[in-house]
């Protein structure tokens, strides 16, 4: 029983790391209807910028501020050079644009900051703590706390500020938002900046676990089943989806994996997502759209 609980709790906590990545996707999808394939590259770029600065001896807080400014500039650039010229184009066009953007961001990151793996020490010990006989990762607990804080902060932003209302307005009906004078271009810049910041948080936590390197951009592969399960338009969905995927992967690898030769985590999450697609195509918390045909 202890083994089961430990596996379950470990999986749930690991799942919050997936949620952090998924939230970045949700933000952009909600505001602009774009499935941003470049989220993983933005995550890499953000973490790499921060670590490259601290490696040069820049104090942590200054490095953080500079990184945020760089991400904001990148968001403005993306809006001006990619989103604005492609406004009113179909979702597939925008998706393909973000696909290209991913390669540009990855190439720029490696070109400017090198491709060597960089160590990142956030000062969070990755040692186990025990609840009775159950072992829990201190690092994963911290990551879960960070995810929680992030969700609360984003909820406050969306629900309690004028900016949040504008963001939700654009997300719900772009034309209506335009008609009442909301500057949609500015909104997109802000959303992409916030998604970059979420990417920075996720990148720092993932980077502390595995080093800041190119493969950080591949953690998006963990976010896709999370989005399918939780829904593309809900931050709560991203959190719940992450927990479901994390727990399922962990339990699946431990209890089903040995019968299938092991190493089942990558496809197991996608198989689960596929099952959800059959039952709830919009995900657990996604918007069910009913359209006249």
């Amino acid at each position, binding site marked *: 029983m202890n083994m089961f609980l*430990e*596996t379950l709790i470990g999986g749930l906590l690991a799942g919050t790391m997936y949620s952090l990545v998924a939230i970045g996707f949700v933000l952009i999808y909600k505001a602009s209807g774009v499935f941003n394939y470049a989220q993983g590259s933005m995550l890499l770029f953000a973490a790499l910028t921060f670590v490259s600065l601290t490696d040069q001896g820049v104090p942590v807080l200054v490095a953080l501020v500079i990184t945020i400014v760089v991400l904001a500039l990148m968001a403005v650039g993306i809006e001006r050079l990619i989103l604005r010229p492609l406004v009113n184009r179909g979702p597939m066009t925008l998706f393909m644009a973000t696909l290209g953007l991913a390669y540009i961001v990855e190439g720029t990151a490696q070109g400017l900051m*090198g491709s060597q793996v960089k*160590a990142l020490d956030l000062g969070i010990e*990755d*040692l186990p703590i025990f609840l009775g006989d159950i072992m829990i990762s201190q690092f994963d607990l911290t990551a879960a706390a960070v995810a929680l804080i992030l969700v609360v902060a984003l909820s406050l932003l969306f629900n309690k500020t004028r900016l949040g209302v504008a963001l939700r307005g654009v997300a719900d009906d772009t034309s209506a938002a335009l008609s009442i004078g909301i500057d949609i271009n500015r909104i997109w810049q802000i959303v992409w900046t916030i998604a970059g910041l979420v990417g920075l948080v996720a990148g720092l936590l993932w980077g502390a*676990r595995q*080093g800041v*390197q190119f493969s950080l951009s*591949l953690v998006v592969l963990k976010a896709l089943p999370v989005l399918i399960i939780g829904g593309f338009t809900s931050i709560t969905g991203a959190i719940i989806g992450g927990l479901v995927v994390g727990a399922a992967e962990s339990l699946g690898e431990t209890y089903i994996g040995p019968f299938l030769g092991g190493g089942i985590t990558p496809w197991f999450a996608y198989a689960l997502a596929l099952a959800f697609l059959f039952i709830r195509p919009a995900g657990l918390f996604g918007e069910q759209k009913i359209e006249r045909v």
Partner: protein
Amino acid sequence: MRKLIIATLLAGGAFMATTATLNAADVTQYIPLPTYRVGAYASSGELWWAGERDYFRYINEVEGGIDGVKLNYEEFETEWSPDRTVEVYERVKAGKDGSPIAFFFTHGTPATYALLEKAAADKIPLIDPAGGRTESIDGRVFPYAFPLLFSYYSQASTGINYIASKVGGFEKLKGLKIATVYHDSAYGRATQPAVELLAKKYGFENIQIPVADPGNEQSPQWRQIHELKPDWVFLRTWGVSTVVGIKTAARFGFPADHIIGDVWAGSESDVIPAGKAAIGYSALAPYPGGADFEIHKRLKKFILDAGKSDLRDQKYFGAVNYNVGLVNAALAVEALRTGYKKFGARPLDGEEGRWAFEHLTIDENRLKEIGFVGLLQPIQITPLDHEGGGAARIQSWDGQKWVLQTDWIKADHEALRPLIEQQAAAYAKEHGITPRTPDTETN
């Protein structure tokens, strides 16, 4: 006017003659290099290609080429993708600028697998040191495949030999639990037959635990390790799965000094991001890290200090992956040198390249001459043995640098050879290959 015309013609003739002389002197051997400077494995690649290029440049600019033949090396970006490597192979197999290719570095086991049959048909040797298909050691079935230096079976055997030395002898292996945590791919599974064989021979329990690519979450695997309580763990991962493996092991309380990484889990990129968790971690080192070897002194003087190095940051001079490049380049250079002695100093084709590799011997004296003592093991390749070495040193990470713990530890070739021959024979049967008989060959 006539004088002017004659003078012009004479000058032109002299110019043509000079050009012809220069062209004769500029005989080059074409060496294509499929590389990966971008993508998921760029951190290894960037240093690897720097090592190869620096050594080739040293040979060209300091030694004047190999017996006067300069090396014309050219990179092709593949992002470590086998299909792109195959595309590169197809593009370069006919050679360039009048030079055929004597061999093709695959720079990756998946690419070697993909090209095995094509290259055999084209009679072009595939060179994949410390990689490739292990049974291709048997050159009777695989004349054009060279898993030089340190095959996967040798990696398993050397690891077990090292554990035996740590526990007080082979008889003490009986009853031990040795777990292999492996990247769930052809590369990761490649040592399994050898470990199984050695487990039967020495009586240890063989536990195999796969990690799916990319391996950035390994709690279930290490929870299993925590439950099974193995005495040693052999870590056969690659890229990010090594860093996460080492860190997760620490989280589950498994001691780093009882983990042995394989060749491709033993570079600075694997341990620096793991921080304190990696202190005491050991790895098999057919390519030891460090910049204190004689060749490094020569390169420092003639290449680095002259501003000609391909290294972007000189702090990586002597890093494991840089040294991988140096050793592999040296193997290629010494093989070409062997070939030029036999066929003359001119560009070799694939068939001549095969002969050159099959007669490559680098003994202690030669290692001393080329400055590779301690960095490269003595090797002797024959038509029957395309590995030619089969040993590694063990290095441990002290938190700052790799520290060499042992001299060269040889694999148990007597135990491994029947397994290799058996698998090569099965491949020959499956592909309708009649094994060659090198003893009866004329050259």
